[in-house]
């Protein structure tokens, strides 16, 4: 099968073109010699099957950024039949050197000059014939956004694909050792083939930025926009999530329950409380992931996300993070899982890992449910909001402390230079596709891990069979007893330790676990807890719950996004340690003060 690689700078509409060419069939796949996953799809070009690979957006084939390394790894390890270079028509002065680098490597190539519509609006005219003869490559002027020139894309791909044998390049950096000369050639070419007004005026962008990047109003507007996006995701997402949970519970109670008599008890319990609950956990994330990426790609594709970096970088740089990481951290207050996936906008690995280490401390909506119940059960109506507020403060403190402590270890050696694209109206099709790809990616990469985790907890809490599930005598309870020397100093007993083990599956389960263990519900459970825990124990328990470990789904996402179990291990060890120290200081301190 013929192989076509798409290359282009960020903000050129490369992914829009890719989606237009491939539709929903694209899949994440790994490639020989390449350390990250790439999106690829099979298409028909000129009557024959071909695969198209969407390479990460890069500025320079010669450079040292993580993405530039990935593109080189790909080209040096995988022969390609054709490279399609996507350029932004409004920035040819900036972008042509990349096309020249591709030609210099001797790769068979075509050039798609994209954003023809925007160029026309701005009065930029491109003479494609002059460009083609100067580049000695076929050129087409297109608009991936509205589909103009698309027939030409198909025709050019069919005409050029397979004219020469596939090329596997070697030593890209060496071949491009003298690429400074290409800049001169690019400048000449632009003079010959492009006519543009001496100063391009982007009035809409300038006018919007006057407010959105305003020295005083910029930040308040940012928080307002983030609040709106957050509300839209979770105000819409939570009812849908509840509905999915209701459907899954209904299926279990109406259909699976019928198996109870037919199957051996242990097998039935394994299937329903292990596997099925695992699948239900995975499914519960699907609505939020779709909504999250639906709205976040809106924020990203519009050009606003890059501006957030501008607004917040003065502060974030001190923490070793960037502004986009801060956005993901804020989004983590809804749910950590999509926030972790969203860190992919950060193209630098060290900075991304640091952000992924910080996000799990965001007090997500699942943890909020637990805290709401406990605070109302154990504190007076006047104290409860203060307690909740203290937990939110702790969440931020833990996140920023982590960022500062680890920013030296996960230091990014790349300069922080970011392009600020003009504001653009996002392409709906693109936004929808993003949500779809992300959900597929999550299901593909994280579901096995999540289901295994749920099954593990099921095993610990249901065996040996003689014991009451979750009660004394189970492995989980025994483990809780072993951990007593560690957990007693922070005021947590063996049965609460079992609750924490349940909490590893999902924080929503914590309340369910308490119900299962005490046999009490609602007011009765609240009363029981009030009798068995004083406020110091309760707050210590909540602090620990906030910090000790994100749920199994968060860990699964950390693993699939970092592709490193070592990183996940470090993250878990750190959050457990931090949780213990925080709870210890609080618990012992409070006990000491109370005498």
């Amino acid at each position, binding site marked *: 099968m013929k192989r076509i690689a798409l290359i282009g700078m960020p903000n050129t509409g490369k992914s829009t073109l890719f989606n237009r060419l491939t539709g929903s069939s694209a899949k994440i796949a790994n490639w020989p010699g390449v350390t990250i996953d790439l999106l690829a799809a099979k298409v028909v070009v000129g009557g024959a099957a071909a695969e198209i690979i969407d390479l990460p957006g890069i500025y*320079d084939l010669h450079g040292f950024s993580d993405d530039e390394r990935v593109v080189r790894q790909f080209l040096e390890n995988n022969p390609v039949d054709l490279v399609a270079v996507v350029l932004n028509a409004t*920035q040819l002065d900036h972008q042509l*050197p990349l096309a020249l680098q591709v030609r210099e490597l001797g790769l068979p190539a075509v050039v798609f000059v994209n954003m023809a519509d925007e160029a026309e609006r701005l009065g930029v005219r491109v003479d494609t014939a002059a460009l083609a003869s100067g580049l000695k490559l076929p050129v087409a002027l297109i608009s991936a956004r509205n589909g103009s020139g698309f027939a030409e894309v198909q025709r050019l791909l069919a005409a050029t694909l397979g004219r020469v044998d596939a090329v596997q390049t070697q030593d890209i950096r060496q071949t491009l050792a003298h690429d400074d000369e290409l800049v001169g050639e690019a400048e000449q070419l632009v003079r010959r083939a492009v006519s543009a007004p001496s100063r391009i005026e982007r009035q809409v962008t300038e006018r919007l930025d006057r407010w959105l990047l305003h020295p005083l109003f910029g930040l308040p507007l940012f928080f307002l926009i983030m609040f709106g996006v957050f509300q839209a995701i979770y105000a819409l997402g939570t009812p849908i999530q509840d509905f999915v949970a209701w459907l899954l519970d209904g299926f279990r109670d109406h259909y699976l329950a019928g198996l109870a008599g037919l199957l051996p008890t242990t097998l039935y319990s394994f299937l329903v409380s292990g596997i099925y609950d695992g699948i239900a956990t995975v499914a519960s994330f699907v609505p939020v992931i779709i909504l999250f990426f639906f709205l976040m790609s809106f924020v990203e594709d519009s050009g606003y996300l890059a501006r957030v970096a501008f607004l917040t970088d*003065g502060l974030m740089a001190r923490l070793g993070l960037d502004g986009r990481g801060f956005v993901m951290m804020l989004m983590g207050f809804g749910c950590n899982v999509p926030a972790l996936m969203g860190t992919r906008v950060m193209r630098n690995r060290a900075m991304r890992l640091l952000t992924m280490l910080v996000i799990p401390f965001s007090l997500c909506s699942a943890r909020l449910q637990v805290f709401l119940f406990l605070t109302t059960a154990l504190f007076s109506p006047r104290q409860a909001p203060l307690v909740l507020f203290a937990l939110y403060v702790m969440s931020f403190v833990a996140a920023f402390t982590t960022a500062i402590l680890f920013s030296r270890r996960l230091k990014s050696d790349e*300069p922080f*230079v970011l392009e600020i694209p003009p504001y653009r109206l996002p392409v709906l099709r693109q936004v929808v596709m993003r949500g779809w790809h992300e959900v597929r990616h999550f299901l593909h990469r994280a579901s096995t891990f999540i289901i295994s985790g749920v099954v593990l907890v099921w095993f610990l809490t249901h065996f040996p069979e003689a014991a009451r599930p979750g009660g004394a005598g189970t492995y989980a309870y025994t483990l809780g007893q072993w951990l007593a020397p560690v957990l007693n100093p922070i005021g947590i007993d063996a049965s609460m330790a079992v609750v924490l083990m349940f909490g590893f599956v999902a924080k929503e389960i914590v309340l369910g676990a308490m119900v299962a263990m005490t046999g009490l519900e609602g007011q009765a459970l609240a009363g029981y807890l009030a009798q068995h825990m004083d406020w110091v124990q309760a707050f210590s328990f909540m602090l620990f719950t906030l910090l000790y470990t994100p749920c199994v789904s968060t860990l699964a996402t950390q693993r699939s996004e970092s592709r490193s179990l070592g990183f996940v291990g470090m993250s878990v060890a750190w959050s457990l340690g931090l949780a213990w120290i925080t709870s210890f200081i609080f618990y012992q301190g409070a006990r000491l003060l109370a005498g």
Partner: protein
Amino acid sequence: MDDYPTLSSLQRGERAIITGVHAGTGLRKRLQAMGLRTGREARVIRRGRLNGPLQVRVGSVDLIIRPRDAERIRISRLS
């Protein structure tokens, strides 16, 4: 160290010609690929608060760059 003006000294609205990029190969390559190369004109559109980044226009491209990195770019001011 020396008193050559650098990009980081430019105020909002000021323009300059880049006269040199003084950084290690990796950093220089990156800045150059983003358009910050010798001979090009740069204009500071705005500066972020709290020693935040500079928004710089080079040709058809707008970039943000931290003051620390902008210090490596020598310029000659245009009035």
